[in-house]
């Protein structure tokens, strides 16, 4: 296995400084050009079903209750109760104190194959001690989460403390061990520049992330096409250097089927078709699922569907 850094902050800084810059205008234009791909008929149907399988169906509100979680778990297993050919989603994503209920509900609904992802490490702000972040993660794992979505310390990143950001990810990865996959949320909206997104992507991958994730969904802008493009370039380059494929999760602002298909085109043409599956690409969303279902219905029936024909959760 190739080692790119020796674990010291100095070698990390050196590696990051040697990364090529991202020209914002060029990146925006490439993303926009890929957004003009016209995905029709059979490709569209394939993309819709794949997007459904990639959805991390999410509820992350202060007002979440057991009832709310039960409802989305039922929907996660059978998104369209009138059509069991619709695939299940990729995961259910909740706050860590609702993991237990989510796991139970999924199992009850025949969804024992669907993982529960928990947001931890003082999501969404990440402003708490490492001790609290570790405990947060432990609790989720104990309750049955097999995916952990952690946030990086953006304050540390923006003040140049890359070693601190790196060490925290290592610590959480250690807690996960082989019980859970680790997704590292960069919160790209707060990083603001594509150069920062590139750097943060590499810090996360070098520290052992299984997935790099754009956003918490609480800050806008989130998973814009150029940001996802930069992250897909990062995982592609990391693969070329190490032979390891890291996943990408786009979360926040992906509301329509059209948005989701644009993301799949990006994956296809930037990282490569090897990433076109739920093991390597996920979409964090809630409202998106119903739009995917309505588009799926239109493809089958030939006419536009309506909001009464998809469930509210």
């Amino acid at each position, binding site marked *: 296995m190739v080692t790119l850094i020796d674990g010291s902050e100095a070698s990390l800084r050196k590696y990051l400084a040697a990364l090529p810059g991202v020209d914002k205008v060029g990146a925006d*234009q490439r993303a926009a050009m890929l957004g003009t791909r016209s995905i029709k008929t059979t490709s569209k149907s394939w993309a819709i079903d794949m997007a459904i399988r990639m959805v991390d169906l999410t509820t992350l509100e202060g007002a979440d209750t057991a009832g709310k979680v039960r409802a989305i778990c039922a929907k996660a297993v059978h998104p369209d109760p009138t059509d069991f050919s619709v695939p299940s989603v990729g995961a259910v994503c909740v706050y860590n104190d609702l993991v237990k209920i989510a796991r139970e509900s999924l199992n009850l609904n025949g969804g024992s194959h669907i993982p529960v992802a928990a947001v931890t490490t003082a999501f969404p702000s990440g402003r708490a001690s490492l001790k609290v972040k570790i405990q947060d993660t432990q609790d989720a794992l104990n309750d049955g989460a097999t995916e952990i979505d952690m946030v990086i310390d953006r304050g540390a990143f923006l003040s140049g403390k890359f070693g601190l950001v790196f060490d925290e990810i290592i610590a959480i990865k250690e807690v996960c061990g082989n019980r859970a996959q680790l997704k590292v949320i960069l919160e790209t909206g707060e990083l603001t520049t594509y150069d920062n997104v590139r750097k943060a992507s590499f810090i996360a991958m070098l520290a052992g992330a299984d997935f790099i994730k754009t956003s918490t969904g609480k800050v806008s802008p989130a998973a814009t096409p150029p940001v996802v493009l930069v992250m897909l370039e990062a995982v592609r380059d990391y693969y070329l250097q190490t032979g390891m494929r890291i996943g990408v999760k786009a979360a926040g602002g992906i509301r329509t089927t059209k948005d989701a298909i644009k993301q799949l085109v990006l994956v296809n043409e930037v990282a490569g078709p090897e990433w076109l599956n739920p093991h390597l690409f996920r979409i964090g969303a809630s409202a998106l699922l119903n739009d995917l279902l309505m588009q799926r219905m239109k493809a089958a029936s030939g006419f536009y569907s309506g909001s009464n024909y998809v469930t509210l959760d």
Partner: protein
Amino acid sequence: MDKNPFEYAPAPESRALVSIKAQYGLFINGAWVEPKTKDKFSTINPANEEVLSKISQASDSDVDRAVKAARAAYLKTWSKMPGKERGKYLFRIARIMQERAREFAVLETLDNGKPIRESRDVDVPLAAAHFFYHAGWADKLDHAGLGINPKPHGVVGQIIPWNFPLLMLAWKIAPALATGNTVVLKPAETTSLTALLFAEVCQQAELPAGVVNIITGDGATGAALVNHPGIDKIAFTGSTEVGKLIARSIAISGKSATLELGGKAANIVFEDAPIDEAVEGIVNGIFFNQGHVCCAGSRLIVQENIYDDLLVKLKRRMSLIRVGDPLDKNTDLGAINSAAQLAKIKELSASGDTEGAFRWSPDCQLPSKGFWFAPTIFTGVTQSHRIAREEIFGPVLSVLTFRTPQEAIEKANNTPYGLSAGIWSEKGSRILWASKALKAGVIWANTFNKFDPASPFGGYKESGWGREGGRHGLAPYLKGAK
């Protein structure tokens, strides 16, 4: 990996958006007229060799008719009209082009072979923008720094090439009309259709008869136009070879001319370039419009210490280029415009093989009918190879290396051409230093093939005379102003 599950299904734009007549006459004095000798030639779709229509061959007497109509319109109507009102016609033309944009895009793709995405997103919007921009100059010429109350030449003869038919028409007609001239324009013989549709737009805009005249035909028609004594000024875009012919003929006649000719642009990638965007810029620089671009970045000059990494990324990116039906919205690289051009590209590429360069193309399925060439790079190219010196005008990139920035500049400038150049670096001072040192009329830093009506375009040395676009582009159309 096995077959990619996400193969994009065909996504054709509808051909029914445009209706093409079985044949076209000449547009002279606001009306359609038959050519004197009734000669017509076929125009085909280069993607499948299907005949699209029959185009008139304008004879010397047709050229004469057109020039006389332009002169009459100049004397009686256009030169008497205040700039403010002239401008309004140009605004109308711009708006109608925007309204009929999709129709123009489909027609351009059928006639030229370029992908619909490019004609829809680049050619047509830029052409309309060109008219919009110049409409605003018509009543502001006093402010252009070209003298008070500058005067037009009168009747302008314009000859345009086949690579950007509608856009080149806009680059010629818009400034000519804005400055008060009237026009006789000859489109390229393989791509006349959008010019003929433009004539319809002139009618819809109620442009006074004779202000714009479109005469179709081959090189003979062009020569007749250039040599007609009733033409006060010539504007030509095309090959350097023909540009020199024109330069020789006006040496005797004393007419003024602007010439926009060929190029062999260097695209210089420094070690501190934003690599992914540079790869995109290299691809765009040579494969946009099938490389049928005078300012194409046809020589990649890359710093030797990043050569290996860059080539890996470039080849990977090239394997994503979708070659095929130009009307498919997902096509990236369309057809070569003609059998003649394809033969030239093949001949020069063969010279690359025999002179010792290494040819590489990604695997592509090329259609059996029509004129096609896979996107190609030649590595191990040196300055003395034909493929480093001669304009190929196709999707073929010659790759050279440099050790120091000074060497990059020397190689870039070591050519009789001087149209454009590209610089890729994240260091501002380096970009400005290179811009100063490069002998090229258009320099793109961290981008390529970007055009705007406000941005002057034109070349040094054998790439031509004069500029098009911006304030500088007005000067050639006004007497006394240089």
